[in-house]
Protein backbone atom coordinates (compact mmCIF):
# COMPACT_ATOMS: atom_id res chain seq x y z
CA UNK A 1 0.00 0.00 0.00
CA UNK A 2 2.69 2.43 0.97
CA UNK A 3 4.67 3.57 -2.03
CA UNK A 4 8.24 2.41 -1.63
CA UNK A 5 11.29 4.23 -2.89
CA UNK A 6 11.56 4.07 -6.66
CA UNK A 7 15.28 3.51 -6.97
CA UNK A 8 15.81 0.85 -4.33
CA UNK A 9 12.51 -0.76 -3.51
CA UNK A 10 14.03 -3.47 -1.39
CA UNK A 11 16.51 -1.37 0.57
CA UNK A 12 14.19 -1.07 3.53
CA UNK A 13 14.07 -4.77 4.10
CA UNK A 14 17.38 -5.62 5.70
CA UNK A 15 16.73 -9.34 5.69
CA UNK A 16 16.39 -9.49 1.92
CA UNK A 17 19.44 -7.37 1.21
CA UNK A 18 21.70 -10.31 0.59
CA UNK A 19 19.14 -12.27 -1.35
CA UNK A 20 19.40 -11.33 -4.98
CA UNK A 21 16.10 -11.34 -6.83
CA UNK A 22 15.77 -11.33 -10.57
CA UNK A 23 13.53 -8.97 -12.44
CA UNK A 24 10.62 -10.66 -14.12
CA UNK A 25 8.96 -9.41 -17.26
CA UNK A 26 5.26 -10.12 -16.99
CA UNK A 27 2.62 -9.77 -19.68
CA UNK A 28 -0.68 -8.62 -18.31
CA UNK A 29 -3.24 -9.00 -21.05
CA UNK A 30 -4.31 -8.64 -23.83
CA UNK A 31 -6.92 -11.09 -22.60
CA UNK A 32 -6.69 -10.37 -18.89
CA UNK A 33 -10.09 -9.65 -17.31
CA UNK A 34 -8.80 -6.70 -15.29
CA UNK A 35 -7.68 -4.80 -18.38
CA UNK A 36 -11.26 -3.98 -19.52
CA UNK A 37 -10.85 -4.97 -23.11
CA UNK A 38 -7.72 -5.75 -25.01
CA UNK A 39 -4.94 -3.81 -23.34
CA UNK A 40 -1.56 -5.40 -22.88
CA UNK A 41 0.55 -4.11 -20.02
CA UNK A 42 4.18 -5.21 -19.96
CA UNK A 43 4.99 -5.22 -16.27
CA UNK A 44 8.55 -5.36 -14.98
CA UNK A 45 8.35 -6.82 -11.51
CA UNK A 46 10.84 -7.35 -8.75
CA UNK A 47 9.16 -9.90 -6.55
CA UNK A 48 5.81 -8.40 -5.69
CA UNK A 49 6.86 -4.88 -6.52
CA UNK A 50 6.34 -3.29 -9.92
CA UNK A 51 9.29 -1.42 -11.36
CA UNK A 52 7.70 -0.31 -14.59
CA UNK A 53 4.46 -0.89 -16.46
CA UNK A 54 4.32 -0.18 -20.15
CA UNK A 55 0.85 -0.16 -21.67
CA UNK A 56 0.67 -1.53 -25.22
CA UNK A 57 -2.36 -0.29 -27.10
CA UNK A 58 -3.69 -0.81 -30.60
CA UNK A 59 -5.40 -4.20 -30.39
CA UNK A 60 -8.79 -2.64 -31.08
CA UNK A 61 -7.72 -0.21 -33.79
CA UNK A 62 -10.46 0.01 -36.40
CA UNK A 63 -9.43 3.03 -38.49
CA UNK A 64 -12.30 5.18 -37.32
CA UNK A 65 -10.75 8.38 -38.63
CA UNK A 66 -9.95 7.00 -42.08
CA UNK A 67 -13.32 5.28 -42.39
CA UNK A 68 -15.07 8.56 -41.69
CA UNK A 69 -13.47 10.13 -44.75
CA UNK A 70 -15.19 7.62 -47.01
CA UNK A 71 -18.77 7.91 -45.78
CA UNK A 72 -21.13 10.86 -45.47
CA UNK A 73 -21.75 12.68 -42.18
CA UNK A 74 -24.85 10.67 -41.30
CA UNK A 75 -23.07 7.38 -41.84
CA UNK A 76 -20.24 8.35 -39.49
CA UNK A 77 -22.70 8.06 -36.61
CA UNK A 78 -22.65 4.23 -36.37
CA UNK A 79 -18.85 4.39 -36.26
CA UNK A 80 -18.94 7.01 -33.51
CA UNK A 81 -21.08 4.58 -31.49
CA UNK A 82 -18.25 2.13 -31.50
CA UNK A 83 -15.65 4.43 -29.95
CA UNK A 84 -16.68 4.25 -26.34
CA UNK A 85 -19.15 1.42 -26.49
CA UNK A 86 -20.26 1.89 -22.89
CA UNK A 87 -21.31 5.49 -23.46
CA UNK A 88 -22.42 5.57 -27.10
CA UNK A 89 -25.06 8.22 -26.56
CA UNK A 90 -22.53 10.72 -25.23
CA UNK A 91 -20.25 10.11 -28.20
CA UNK A 92 -23.14 10.65 -30.60
CA UNK A 93 -24.08 13.87 -28.88
CA UNK A 94 -20.51 15.10 -29.23
CA UNK A 95 -20.31 14.36 -32.94
CA UNK A 96 -23.80 15.67 -33.67
CA UNK A 97 -23.01 18.96 -31.91
CA UNK A 98 -19.79 19.32 -33.90
CA UNK A 99 -21.51 18.82 -37.27
CA UNK A 100 -24.48 20.99 -36.32
CA UNK A 101 -22.18 23.86 -35.48
CA UNK A 102 -20.53 23.48 -38.88
CA UNK A 103 -23.92 23.53 -40.58
CA UNK A 104 -25.11 26.44 -38.44
CA UNK A 105 -28.15 24.37 -37.58
CA UNK A 106 -30.58 25.16 -34.81
CA UNK A 107 -31.74 22.01 -33.03
CA UNK A 108 -35.39 21.99 -31.87
CA UNK A 109 -35.80 22.40 -28.13
CA UNK A 110 -37.63 19.12 -27.79
CA UNK A 111 -34.69 17.32 -29.34
CA UNK A 112 -32.26 19.09 -26.98
CA UNK A 113 -34.31 18.02 -23.97
CA UNK A 114 -34.46 14.42 -25.15
CA UNK A 115 -30.74 14.42 -25.91
CA UNK A 116 -29.74 15.65 -22.47
CA UNK A 117 -32.05 13.21 -20.69
CA UNK A 118 -30.73 10.28 -22.71
CA UNK A 119 -27.10 11.39 -22.35
CA UNK A 120 -27.43 11.63 -18.57
CA UNK A 121 -29.04 8.20 -18.43
CA UNK A 122 -26.09 6.91 -20.41
CA UNK A 123 -23.72 8.59 -17.95
CA UNK A 124 -25.40 6.72 -15.10
CA UNK A 125 -25.17 3.45 -17.04
CA UNK A 126 -21.50 4.02 -17.75
CA UNK A 127 -20.66 4.88 -14.14
CA UNK A 128 -22.61 1.83 -12.96
CA UNK A 129 -20.45 -0.28 -15.21
CA UNK A 130 -17.32 1.39 -13.81
CA UNK A 131 -18.53 0.81 -10.26
CA UNK A 132 -19.35 -2.83 -10.96
CA UNK A 133 -16.15 -3.75 -12.73
CA UNK A 134 -14.04 -1.88 -10.20
CA UNK A 135 -15.50 -4.12 -7.53
CA UNK A 136 -14.72 -7.08 -9.75
CA UNK A 137 -11.10 -5.95 -10.10
CA UNK A 138 -10.70 -5.74 -6.34
CA UNK A 139 -12.33 -9.10 -5.73
CA UNK A 140 -15.80 -7.91 -4.71
CA UNK A 141 -18.12 -9.75 -7.07
CA UNK A 142 -21.33 -8.47 -5.46
CA UNK A 143 -20.88 -4.91 -6.73
CA UNK A 144 -20.81 -6.19 -10.29
CA UNK A 145 -24.22 -7.82 -9.93
CA UNK A 146 -25.81 -4.71 -8.43
CA UNK A 147 -24.29 -2.46 -11.08
CA UNK A 148 -25.49 -4.64 -13.91
CA UNK A 149 -28.99 -5.01 -12.50
CA UNK A 150 -29.58 -1.27 -12.66
CA UNK A 151 -27.73 -0.79 -15.92
CA UNK A 152 -30.10 -3.36 -17.42
CA UNK A 153 -33.04 -1.08 -16.63
CA UNK A 154 -31.40 1.81 -18.47
CA UNK A 155 -30.67 -0.45 -21.43
CA UNK A 156 -34.34 -1.48 -21.46
CA UNK A 157 -35.31 2.18 -21.65
CA UNK A 158 -32.85 2.70 -24.51
CA UNK A 159 -34.15 -0.36 -26.32
CA UNK A 160 -37.66 0.96 -26.25
CA UNK A 161 -36.54 4.49 -27.18
CA UNK A 162 -34.25 3.66 -30.09
CA UNK A 163 -34.47 -0.06 -30.79
CA UNK A 164 -30.96 -1.15 -29.81
CA UNK A 165 -29.28 -1.95 -26.54
CA UNK A 166 -25.65 -1.03 -27.03
CA UNK A 167 -24.95 0.68 -30.36
CA UNK A 168 -27.85 3.05 -30.72
CA UNK A 169 -27.40 5.40 -33.68
CA UNK A 170 -30.07 7.52 -31.99
CA UNK A 171 -28.83 11.10 -31.95
CA UNK A 172 -28.78 12.13 -35.56
CA UNK A 173 -27.51 15.37 -36.98
CA UNK A 174 -30.27 17.90 -36.41
CA UNK A 175 -32.08 16.07 -33.64
CA UNK A 176 -32.94 12.55 -32.61
CA UNK A 177 -33.96 9.59 -34.77
CA UNK A 178 -37.24 8.83 -33.04
CA UNK A 179 -39.48 10.89 -30.83
CA UNK A 180 -39.99 9.91 -27.22
CA UNK A 181 -43.44 8.69 -26.20
CA UNK A 182 -45.31 9.40 -22.92
CA UNK A 183 -44.85 5.75 -22.05
CA UNK A 184 -41.09 6.05 -22.24
CA UNK A 185 -41.18 9.27 -20.20
CA UNK A 186 -43.01 7.32 -17.52
CA UNK A 187 -40.35 4.59 -17.69
CA UNK A 188 -37.55 7.12 -17.18
CA UNK A 189 -39.44 8.76 -14.31
CA UNK A 190 -39.97 5.49 -12.49
CA UNK A 191 -36.33 4.60 -13.02
CA UNK A 192 -35.23 7.86 -11.36
CA UNK A 193 -37.55 7.19 -8.43
CA UNK A 194 -36.14 3.69 -8.14
CA UNK A 195 -32.51 4.65 -8.56
CA UNK A 196 -32.18 7.58 -6.11
CA UNK A 197 -32.05 5.51 -2.90
CA UNK A 198 -29.84 2.91 -4.59
CA UNK A 199 -26.77 5.17 -4.66
CA UNK A 200 -26.69 5.31 -0.85
CA UNK A 201 -27.09 1.56 -0.79
CA UNK A 202 -24.08 1.10 -3.05
CA UNK A 203 -22.04 3.42 -0.87
CA UNK A 204 -22.90 1.27 2.13
CA UNK A 205 -22.14 -1.86 0.20
CA UNK A 206 -18.85 -0.83 -1.39
CA UNK A 207 -17.64 2.77 -1.02
CA UNK A 208 -17.58 2.94 2.79
CA UNK A 209 -16.60 -0.66 3.30
CA UNK A 210 -13.36 -0.60 5.29
CA UNK A 211 -11.75 -3.33 3.21
CA UNK A 212 -12.50 -1.38 0.03
CA UNK A 213 -11.15 1.82 1.57
CA UNK A 214 -7.96 0.09 2.66
CA UNK A 215 -7.47 -1.26 -0.85
CA UNK A 216 -8.00 2.05 -2.62
CA UNK A 217 -6.87 4.89 -0.38
CA UNK A 218 -3.39 6.34 -0.96
CA UNK A 219 -3.13 4.15 -4.07
CA UNK A 220 -2.55 5.54 -7.55
CA UNK A 221 -2.37 9.14 -6.43
CA UNK A 222 -2.58 11.60 -9.34
CA UNK A 223 -1.96 15.17 -8.27
CA UNK A 224 -3.06 18.24 -10.18
CA UNK A 225 0.32 18.82 -11.83
CA UNK A 226 0.33 15.31 -13.32
CA UNK A 227 -3.22 15.87 -14.51
CA UNK A 228 -2.25 19.06 -16.25
CA UNK A 229 0.91 17.69 -17.83
CA UNK A 230 -0.94 14.67 -19.23
CA UNK A 231 -4.04 16.64 -20.19
CA UNK A 232 -6.35 14.51 -18.10
CA UNK A 233 -9.99 15.47 -18.01
CA UNK A 234 -13.24 14.28 -16.55
CA UNK A 235 -13.36 12.23 -13.40
CA UNK A 236 -9.56 11.93 -13.19
CA UNK A 237 -9.18 15.70 -13.04
CA UNK A 238 -12.10 16.28 -10.71
CA UNK A 239 -10.84 13.60 -8.31
CA UNK A 240 -7.61 15.61 -8.04
CA UNK A 241 -9.66 18.47 -6.61
CA UNK A 242 -9.98 20.65 -9.68
CA UNK A 243 -13.53 21.77 -10.48
CA UNK A 244 -13.73 21.51 -14.24
CA UNK A 245 -16.76 20.21 -16.01
CA UNK A 246 -17.58 21.30 -19.55
CA UNK A 247 -21.26 21.07 -18.79
CA UNK A 248 -20.74 23.82 -16.23
CA UNK A 249 -17.76 25.78 -17.49
CA UNK A 250 -18.35 25.79 -21.25
CA UNK A 251 -22.00 24.79 -21.42
CA UNK A 252 -23.30 23.23 -24.60
CA UNK A 253 -26.86 22.15 -25.44
CA UNK A 254 -29.21 23.24 -22.61
CA UNK A 255 -26.88 22.61 -19.69
CA UNK A 256 -26.75 26.37 -19.08
CA UNK A 257 -30.29 26.34 -17.76
CA UNK A 258 -29.82 23.37 -15.45
CA UNK A 259 -28.94 23.23 -11.79
CA UNK A 260 -26.40 20.68 -10.71
CA UNK A 261 -23.21 20.43 -8.68
CA UNK A 262 -19.83 19.27 -9.88
CA UNK A 263 -18.53 16.77 -7.33
CA UNK A 264 -14.78 16.92 -6.73
CA UNK A 265 -12.45 14.72 -4.72
CA UNK A 266 -11.43 16.03 -1.34
CA UNK A 267 -9.10 13.38 0.01
CA UNK A 268 -11.62 12.19 2.57
CA UNK A 269 -10.08 8.81 3.22
CA UNK A 270 -6.48 9.34 2.23
CA UNK A 271 -4.52 11.46 -0.20
CA UNK A 272 -6.23 13.81 -2.62
CA UNK A 273 -6.57 12.18 -6.03
CA UNK A 274 -6.29 8.55 -5.02
CA UNK A 275 -8.37 5.67 -6.32
CA UNK A 276 -11.03 6.10 -3.64
CA UNK A 277 -11.56 9.72 -4.67
CA UNK A 278 -12.06 8.71 -8.28
CA UNK A 279 -14.55 6.07 -7.23
CA UNK A 280 -16.57 8.40 -5.00
CA UNK A 281 -16.65 11.17 -7.61
CA UNK A 282 -18.32 8.71 -9.99
CA UNK A 283 -20.85 7.71 -7.37
CA UNK A 284 -21.70 11.35 -6.64
CA UNK A 285 -21.95 12.21 -10.33
CA UNK A 286 -24.67 9.61 -10.70
CA UNK A 287 -26.78 11.45 -8.13
CA UNK A 288 -26.27 14.70 -10.04
CA UNK A 289 -27.30 13.03 -13.31
CA UNK A 290 -30.54 11.88 -11.70
CA UNK A 291 -31.06 15.46 -10.53
CA UNK A 292 -30.63 16.75 -14.09
CA UNK A 293 -33.07 14.20 -15.52
CA UNK A 294 -35.68 15.08 -12.89
CA UNK A 295 -35.46 18.75 -13.80
CA UNK A 296 -36.11 18.02 -17.46
CA UNK A 297 -38.44 15.06 -17.58
CA UNK A 298 -41.64 16.92 -16.61
CA UNK A 299 -41.22 19.81 -18.98
CA UNK A 300 -40.26 18.35 -22.35
CA UNK A 301 -41.60 20.99 -24.77
CA UNK A 302 -43.81 20.01 -27.67
CA UNK A 303 -42.56 20.33 -31.21
CA UNK A 304 -40.56 18.42 -33.76
CA UNK A 305 -37.81 16.08 -32.62
CA UNK A 306 -35.63 16.75 -35.63
CA UNK A 307 -34.78 19.99 -37.37
CA UNK A 308 -35.14 20.69 -41.08
CA UNK A 309 -32.15 19.09 -42.70
CA UNK A 310 -31.53 17.54 -46.09
CA UNK A 311 -31.05 13.81 -46.51
CA UNK A 312 -27.30 14.26 -46.91
CA UNK A 313 -25.88 17.11 -44.80
CA UNK A 314 -23.33 19.26 -46.60
CA UNK A 315 -21.41 21.59 -44.28
CA UNK A 316 -19.61 24.54 -45.91
CA UNK A 317 -15.84 24.30 -46.33
CA UNK A 318 -13.95 24.98 -43.14
CA UNK A 319 -12.87 23.37 -39.94
CA UNK A 320 -14.40 23.02 -36.54
CA UNK A 321 -13.33 21.79 -33.12
CA UNK A 322 -15.83 20.99 -30.44
CA UNK A 323 -15.70 19.04 -27.23
CA UNK A 324 -18.27 17.60 -24.87
CA UNK A 325 -18.20 16.05 -21.44
CA UNK A 326 -18.41 12.26 -21.65
CA UNK A 327 -18.43 9.94 -18.63
CA UNK A 328 -14.70 9.37 -19.06
CA UNK A 329 -13.64 12.91 -19.82
CA UNK A 330 -13.70 15.41 -22.62
CA UNK A 331 -14.34 13.95 -26.03
CA UNK A 332 -13.27 16.26 -28.80
CA UNK A 333 -14.00 16.16 -32.52
CA UNK A 334 -12.00 18.14 -35.02
CA UNK A 335 -13.70 18.06 -38.40
CA UNK A 336 -12.40 19.53 -41.63
CA UNK A 337 -14.89 19.94 -44.45
CA UNK A 338 -14.14 20.66 -48.08
CA UNK A 339 -17.77 21.39 -48.87
CA UNK A 340 -18.64 17.91 -50.09
CA UNK A 341 -20.90 15.32 -48.51
CA UNK A 342 -18.04 13.42 -46.91
CA UNK A 343 -15.81 14.88 -44.21
CA UNK A 344 -12.29 15.66 -45.41
CA UNK A 345 -10.77 14.79 -42.07
CA UNK A 346 -12.16 13.71 -38.71
CA UNK A 347 -9.87 13.75 -35.70
CA UNK A 348 -11.09 12.32 -32.44
CA UNK A 349 -9.45 13.27 -29.16
CA UNK A 350 -10.39 10.61 -26.67
CA UNK A 351 -10.02 11.00 -22.91
CA UNK A 352 -9.11 7.36 -22.23
CA UNK A 353 -5.94 7.64 -24.29
CA UNK A 354 -4.55 10.20 -21.84
CA UNK A 355 -5.77 8.22 -18.86
CA UNK A 356 -3.98 5.06 -19.86
CA UNK A 357 -0.79 7.01 -20.61
CA UNK A 358 -0.38 7.91 -16.93
CA UNK A 359 -0.13 4.26 -15.92
CA UNK A 360 3.64 4.07 -16.29
CA UNK A 361 4.21 7.09 -14.06
CA UNK A 362 2.05 5.64 -11.32
CA UNK A 363 3.51 2.15 -11.43
CA UNK A 364 7.01 2.67 -10.04
CA UNK A 365 7.43 0.83 -6.77
CA UNK A 366 3.83 -0.22 -6.17
CA UNK A 367 2.55 -3.71 -5.50
CA UNK A 368 1.07 -5.71 -8.37
CA UNK A 369 -2.36 -5.73 -6.74
CA UNK A 370 -2.25 -1.95 -6.41
CA UNK A 371 -1.49 -1.64 -10.10
CA UNK A 372 -4.75 -3.46 -10.85
CA UNK A 373 -6.60 -1.17 -8.45
CA UNK A 374 -5.11 1.87 -10.18
CA UNK A 375 -5.91 0.64 -13.68
CA UNK A 376 -9.45 -0.23 -12.65
CA UNK A 377 -10.05 3.22 -11.22
CA UNK A 378 -9.21 4.84 -14.58
CA UNK A 379 -12.30 3.20 -16.08
CA UNK A 380 -10.77 2.94 -19.53
CA UNK A 381 -12.59 1.61 -22.57
CA UNK A 382 -10.17 0.31 -25.13
CA UNK A 383 -12.52 0.98 -28.02
CA UNK A 384 -11.91 4.64 -27.40
CA UNK A 385 -8.18 4.39 -26.73
CA UNK A 386 -7.48 2.65 -30.04
CA UNK A 387 -10.34 4.04 -32.15
Amino acid at each position, binding site marked *: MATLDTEQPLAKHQATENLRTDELLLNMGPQHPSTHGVLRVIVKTDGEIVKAAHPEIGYLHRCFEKHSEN*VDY*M*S*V*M*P*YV*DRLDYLASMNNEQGFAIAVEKMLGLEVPRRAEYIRVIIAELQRIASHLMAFGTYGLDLGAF*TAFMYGFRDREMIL*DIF*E*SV*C*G*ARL*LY*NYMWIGGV*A*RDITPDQVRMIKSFCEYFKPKID*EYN*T*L*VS*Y*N*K*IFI*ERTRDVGVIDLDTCKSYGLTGVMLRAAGFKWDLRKDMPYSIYKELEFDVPVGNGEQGTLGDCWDRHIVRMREMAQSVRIIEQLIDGIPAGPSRGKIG*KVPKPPAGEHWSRTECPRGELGFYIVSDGSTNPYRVKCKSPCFMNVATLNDLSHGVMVSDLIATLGSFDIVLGEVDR
Partner: protein
Amino acid sequence: MTFVDYCETIKDITFSTLKGMGVTIKYFWKVNTKGAITIQYPEQKDTLPMGSRGLLFNDVEDCISCKQCAQACPVDCIYIEADKKGAGAPADMTKGGVKKTLDLKRFEIDISLCCYCGLCSAACPTDCLYHTKEYEYSVVDRDKHIMDYMNYKR
Protein backbone atom coordinates in the same frame (compact mmCIF):
# COMPACT_ATOMS: atom_id res chain seq x y z
CA MET B 1 0.52 1.20 13.25
CA THR B 2 -0.04 0.71 16.92
CA PHE B 3 -1.91 -2.23 18.37
CA VAL B 4 -4.90 -0.03 19.18
CA ASP B 5 -5.05 1.19 15.57
CA TYR B 6 -4.87 -2.38 14.37
CA CYS B 7 -7.79 -3.41 16.56
CA GLU B 8 -9.71 -0.34 15.45
CA THR B 9 -9.22 -1.29 11.79
CA ILE B 10 -10.44 -4.82 12.41
CA LYS B 11 -13.49 -3.46 14.19
CA ASP B 12 -14.21 -1.10 11.28
CA ILE B 13 -13.81 -3.89 8.76
CA THR B 14 -16.19 -6.14 10.65
CA PHE B 15 -18.89 -3.53 11.10
CA SER B 16 -18.76 -2.07 7.60
CA THR B 17 -18.83 -5.55 6.09
CA LEU B 18 -21.80 -6.50 8.22
CA LYS B 19 -23.60 -3.36 7.03
CA GLY B 20 -22.95 -4.40 3.44
CA MET B 21 -24.12 -7.92 4.21
CA GLY B 22 -27.34 -6.37 5.51
CA VAL B 23 -28.01 -4.94 2.05
CA THR B 24 -27.34 -8.29 0.43
CA ILE B 25 -29.56 -10.19 2.85
CA LYS B 26 -32.41 -7.74 2.17
CA TYR B 27 -32.26 -8.67 -1.53
CA PHE B 28 -31.72 -12.33 -0.79
CA TRP B 29 -35.00 -12.29 1.09
CA LYS B 30 -36.81 -10.44 -1.73
CA VAL B 31 -35.62 -12.81 -4.45
CA ASN B 32 -36.66 -15.84 -2.44
CA THR B 33 -40.13 -14.52 -1.74
CA LYS B 34 -40.94 -12.96 -5.09
CA GLY B 35 -39.58 -15.67 -7.35
CA ALA B 36 -36.78 -15.72 -9.85
CA ILE B 37 -36.64 -13.15 -12.63
CA THR B 38 -34.38 -15.11 -14.96
CA ILE B 39 -35.99 -15.99 -18.29
CA GLN B 40 -35.39 -19.59 -19.36
CA TYR B 41 -34.40 -18.47 -22.85
CA PRO B 42 -35.06 -21.14 -25.48
CA GLU B 43 -38.35 -22.13 -23.84
CA GLN B 44 -39.43 -18.67 -22.72
CA LYS B 45 -38.82 -15.56 -24.72
CA ASP B 46 -38.64 -11.92 -23.73
CA THR B 47 -41.03 -9.62 -25.57
CA LEU B 48 -39.05 -7.03 -27.48
CA PRO B 49 -40.32 -3.45 -27.44
CA MET B 50 -41.85 -1.79 -30.51
CA GLY B 51 -39.24 -0.78 -33.05
CA SER B 52 -36.50 -3.16 -31.98
CA ARG B 53 -33.90 -3.34 -34.70
CA GLY B 54 -33.57 -6.97 -35.70
CA LEU B 55 -33.24 -8.71 -39.06
CA LEU B 56 -33.97 -6.49 -42.06
CA PHE B 57 -36.87 -7.30 -44.35
CA ASN B 58 -37.72 -5.81 -47.72
CA ASP B 59 -41.15 -6.12 -49.27
CA VAL B 60 -40.08 -6.28 -52.94
CA GLU B 61 -43.66 -5.68 -54.13
CA ASP B 62 -43.43 -2.15 -52.74
CA CYS B 63 -39.82 -1.45 -53.63
CA ILE B 64 -39.27 1.25 -56.27
CA SER B 65 -35.53 0.44 -56.70
CA CYS B 66 -34.49 3.99 -55.78
CA LYS B 67 -31.26 2.74 -54.16
CA GLN B 68 -31.46 5.32 -51.37
CA CYS B 69 -30.97 2.56 -48.80
CA ALA B 70 -27.79 1.36 -50.50
CA GLN B 71 -26.52 4.93 -50.52
CA ALA B 72 -27.29 5.49 -46.84
CA CYS B 73 -25.68 2.22 -45.74
CA PRO B 74 -22.37 2.92 -43.96
CA VAL B 75 -21.00 -0.58 -44.65
CA ASP B 76 -22.35 -1.03 -48.22
CA CYS B 77 -24.07 -4.34 -47.59
CA ILE B 78 -27.17 -3.75 -49.74
CA TYR B 79 -26.94 -4.95 -53.36
CA ILE B 80 -29.59 -3.74 -55.81
CA GLU B 81 -29.90 -4.27 -59.53
CA ALA B 82 -32.76 -2.86 -61.54
CA ASP B 83 -33.62 -2.43 -65.22
CA LYS B 84 -35.72 0.17 -66.98
CA LYS B 85 -39.20 -1.07 -67.68
CA GLY B 86 -40.09 -1.91 -71.29
CA ALA B 87 -42.27 0.50 -73.26
CA GLY B 88 -45.30 -1.77 -73.38
CA ALA B 89 -45.12 -2.97 -69.81
CA PRO B 90 -48.28 -2.50 -67.68
CA ALA B 91 -48.24 0.28 -65.08
CA ASP B 92 -47.14 -1.02 -61.70
CA MET B 93 -47.99 0.73 -58.45
CA THR B 94 -46.90 0.21 -54.85
CA LYS B 95 -49.45 -0.11 -52.05
CA GLY B 96 -48.86 3.53 -51.19
CA GLY B 97 -49.66 4.60 -54.76
CA VAL B 98 -46.14 5.34 -55.98
CA LYS B 99 -45.49 4.45 -59.61
CA LYS B 100 -42.69 1.95 -60.18
CA THR B 101 -40.54 2.99 -63.12
CA LEU B 102 -37.85 0.38 -62.67
CA ASP B 103 -37.96 -3.37 -62.73
CA LEU B 104 -36.18 -4.79 -59.67
CA LYS B 105 -33.91 -7.68 -60.63
CA ARG B 106 -31.88 -8.24 -57.49
CA PHE B 107 -32.26 -7.14 -53.88
CA GLU B 108 -29.83 -8.75 -51.50
CA ILE B 109 -28.53 -7.78 -48.08
CA ASP B 110 -25.46 -9.35 -46.54
CA ILE B 111 -26.68 -9.69 -42.99
CA SER B 112 -23.26 -10.69 -41.70
CA LEU B 113 -22.01 -7.19 -42.64
CA CYS B 114 -25.10 -5.30 -41.48
CA CYS B 115 -24.56 -3.17 -38.36
CA TYR B 116 -28.28 -2.65 -37.61
CA CYS B 117 -27.94 1.12 -37.55
CA GLY B 118 -31.36 1.73 -39.09
CA LEU B 119 -30.19 4.34 -41.60
CA CYS B 120 -31.51 2.36 -44.59
CA SER B 121 -35.01 1.88 -43.21
CA ALA B 122 -35.14 5.58 -42.34
CA ALA B 123 -34.15 6.53 -45.89
CA CYS B 124 -36.74 4.27 -47.56
CA PRO B 125 -39.40 6.49 -49.22
CA THR B 126 -42.05 3.75 -49.50
CA ASP B 127 -41.34 2.17 -46.07
CA CYS B 128 -40.89 -1.24 -47.65
CA LEU B 129 -37.51 -1.86 -46.03
CA TYR B 130 -37.80 -2.24 -42.29
CA HIS B 131 -36.33 -4.00 -39.27
CA THR B 132 -38.24 -6.99 -37.96
CA LYS B 133 -38.04 -8.20 -34.39
CA GLU B 134 -36.41 -11.43 -35.49
CA TYR B 135 -33.04 -12.21 -33.93
CA GLU B 136 -32.57 -15.96 -34.32
CA TYR B 137 -30.95 -16.57 -37.68
CA SER B 138 -27.60 -18.20 -37.05
CA VAL B 139 -26.38 -20.35 -39.92
CA VAL B 140 -23.49 -22.73 -40.51
CA ASP B 141 -22.57 -21.38 -43.91
CA ARG B 142 -21.68 -17.73 -44.30
CA ASP B 143 -23.23 -17.56 -47.80
CA LYS B 144 -26.63 -18.23 -46.27
CA HIS B 145 -26.42 -14.88 -44.52
CA ILE B 146 -26.90 -13.12 -47.84
CA MET B 147 -30.64 -12.57 -47.74
CA ASP B 148 -32.23 -12.70 -51.19
CA TYR B 149 -35.52 -10.86 -50.87
CA MET B 150 -36.67 -11.59 -54.43
CA ASN B 151 -37.42 -15.18 -53.46
CA TYR B 152 -37.44 -14.97 -49.70
CA LYS B 153 -38.53 -17.84 -47.54
CA ARG B 154 -37.92 -18.34 -43.87
